[in-house]
């Protein structure tokens, strides 16, 4: 079971909840399950997010396994200059 925290505009899209427990073994699975659990989140998740797993930021490598008990944050997409 993963404990997931939301940041940015995602925080207000899940009925006020900002933290969730989700069973998932990869980032992709986590995002799919979150979108199904909280449909209001899905459009934001589909538009792109950044996922931080134990401090490492993932922008696209979503098949990355998430270790049990990992610190997981879902954040807005990163843009660079």
């Amino acid at each position, binding site marked *: 079971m993963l404990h997931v*925290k939301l*940041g*940015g*505009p995602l*925080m*207000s*899209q899940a009925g*006020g909840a900002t933290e969730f427990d989700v069973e998932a073994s990869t980032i992709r699975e986590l995002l799919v399950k979150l979108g199904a659990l909280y449909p209001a989140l899905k459009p*934001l998740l589909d*538009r792109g997010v950044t996922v*931080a797993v*134990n*401090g*490492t*930021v*993932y*922008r*696209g*490598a979503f098949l*990355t396994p998430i270790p049990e008990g990992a*610190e997981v*944050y879902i*954040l*807005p997409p*990163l*843009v*660079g*200059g």
Partner: protein
Amino acid sequence: MPLDSKTEMPLRHFDLVGTRPLRPDGIDKVTGRARFGADISAAGMLHGQILRSPHAHARILRIDTSKALALDGVKAVITSADLPDRTNGNGDLFAVLTNVMARGKALYDGHAVAAVAATSTSIARKALALIKVEYEVLAHVTDVEAAMSPDAPVLHDDLYTEGVEPKPTKASNIAKRHQFGHGDTAKGFKAADFVIERTFRTAATHQGYIEPHACLANVRPDGAAELWACTQGHFMVRNTCAELLGLDTSRLRVTASEIGGGFGGKTTVFIEPVALALSRKAGRPVKLVLDRSEVFRATGPTASTCIRVKIGAKKNGKITAAEAELKYQGGAFPGSLVELGAMSAFACYALENVDIVGWDVVANRPKLAAYRAPSAPMAAFAVESVIQELAEKTGIDPIEFRLMNAIEEGGKSSFGPTFGRIGLKQTLEAARNHPHYNAPLAKNQGRGVACGFWFNFGGNTSVSLTVNIDGTIGVATGMPDIGGSRASMCMMAAEEFGIPYDRVNTIIADTSSLGFCDMTDGSRVTFSAGIATINAVRDAIGKLCARAAAIWDIPKDAVEWEKGHCEPAGANAGKFKPLSLREIAAEAANTGGPIAGHFEINADGAGVSFGTHIADVEIDPETGGARVIRYTVCQDAGKAVHPSYVEGQFQGGATQGIGWALNEEYVYGADGRLKNAGFLDYRVPVASDLPMIDTVIVEVANPGHPYGVRGVGETPIVPPLGTIANAISAASGVRMTEIPMSPPRLLKAMSERKA
């Protein structure tokens, strides 16, 4: 890949990485041979020009192109009708399409409304004057706080604020609310001995690249197309243009020219879809080159901002709570990137109680484009100004105060995640130990210090390399070389092969020659293309070892690679004279054919970057002018592959930040028109304005890269605004809360203080 982990990186010896060989593109650039965007031509080429709205906000009632089309030499005229909406509900892509050519409404002064292709530039300009556009002028708003007002003119009647509860029922100019933080700030402020709260404002600035946008499009009768463009990402250009114009991606080949600066401003498309649409309509190649005024009026400036910061601290210097509210307008479309300002604002500090709210606002200005660490410099200016004041209140040296509160490995960031291996404290210590920090100051001079943070990222990257018949190596990457990546890739490939630097040549391949690559942005290229290059070399080495094994008739795993040679792996493998790369390459045709290596990755774990800057500023009390007399950048580079390029990034970022702090600003009139769309009135620093900027490369290796590399290109623009503000405050006794701190503004503040 376990990036940013706490794993210690083993110290390794490098032969080439960390040295300063000559840049491979240097001679072409100083002799004028390098071909930039406007240097590309084609037989039968037409010249494109764009008609732009003179109004900040206007409904387009009618466009009559008949007279323009009738002009001799005009071969095509397009409007938004020639760029039908193929975005399938993708709001971000629709915004790009609408920015490229206005649809229904002109949303800012300079918004494109039509374009012409003609046999000469002068005919194309004459044709623009013959296009009649009937406008219904609407009320406009260019200021961020005015745009947030309930009675502001609304730009988009379908824009409802995201991220607020209850969901709004009325359209407004506020696109999104972002929030980050943790702890209890009210409790934290109660525990503070000092609380400082201030509101800051920063003007919009432009990236100020020397080379204006330019491209040449050639759509052939069979629908296949070629495009040469000055861009930070030709694969992005290909994909975006293919979608907007309904082309098959495989039939649009985009080649990146050399690039005269981008800094984030060339990470989207402005003119490329227009040139393609004109070429398609005219049936001939079309070249489009913007002039400087168009660059300012219609390509990406930064956000202008209003930022409130409140920080509390104990007498002993410990910060107890921090709050910020950031309002960023990013032009006429959602996407001010305020969230990045919000996430980076307090990233340098370990905070138990922190609350940050960001508002993404639209206004009648050109659509924002990224600029080096987008959104972070403004937030750092506000936060570092208040941090400095708290250091003064507590009587603690500003660097010591920052060290006491600095985030370090294992610390929870203000935006949530726990940091891995980071080097902020090392940059602060480097600044404290630098002779600059304790050098004497004269009358009217002051010293400032500030820190800055940027995320950095990796992304999609493809590298292909060939082992040539003479044993030289050709490396192909797909990210335009802006900051010296060709040299860095040559160095990393040579290092990994164990061969001299000059045996490797790196090119930037076009979109039909290589797998997809993300753009040159996010300080990502040396990191992610480095990973791909090193692994492509390892792929080739595996094949070279297999050829040696075949030549020696021994098993593949009985061969090992050692500094440019295949050798038997131990005595049991047999006794053979080592085979050099050159020898194996010469035999390639007879031992199985060409030898190549490649690697494709979506690289993550780029490793964040921190910097600390010191500035000495001298104030002229008569004029309010502030002159930077000494400047030092200390930044964590992870591992500097080519230190001269790293130092160049530090100096370039600092220079742009100094310009932002002191002079640069978009000035709008009451009519909503940009008043200073040229380098005479939009003043960027030139060499004679600045001292030589000193640099200290701090190396806290990034565990996510085989050589420890972190991106370095963006972080150096983050601290200068705060650094200069703190130096001006020390020199003048005035705390400036508005950027730029231009002479009239500083003079006024000093006069008010005297009064």
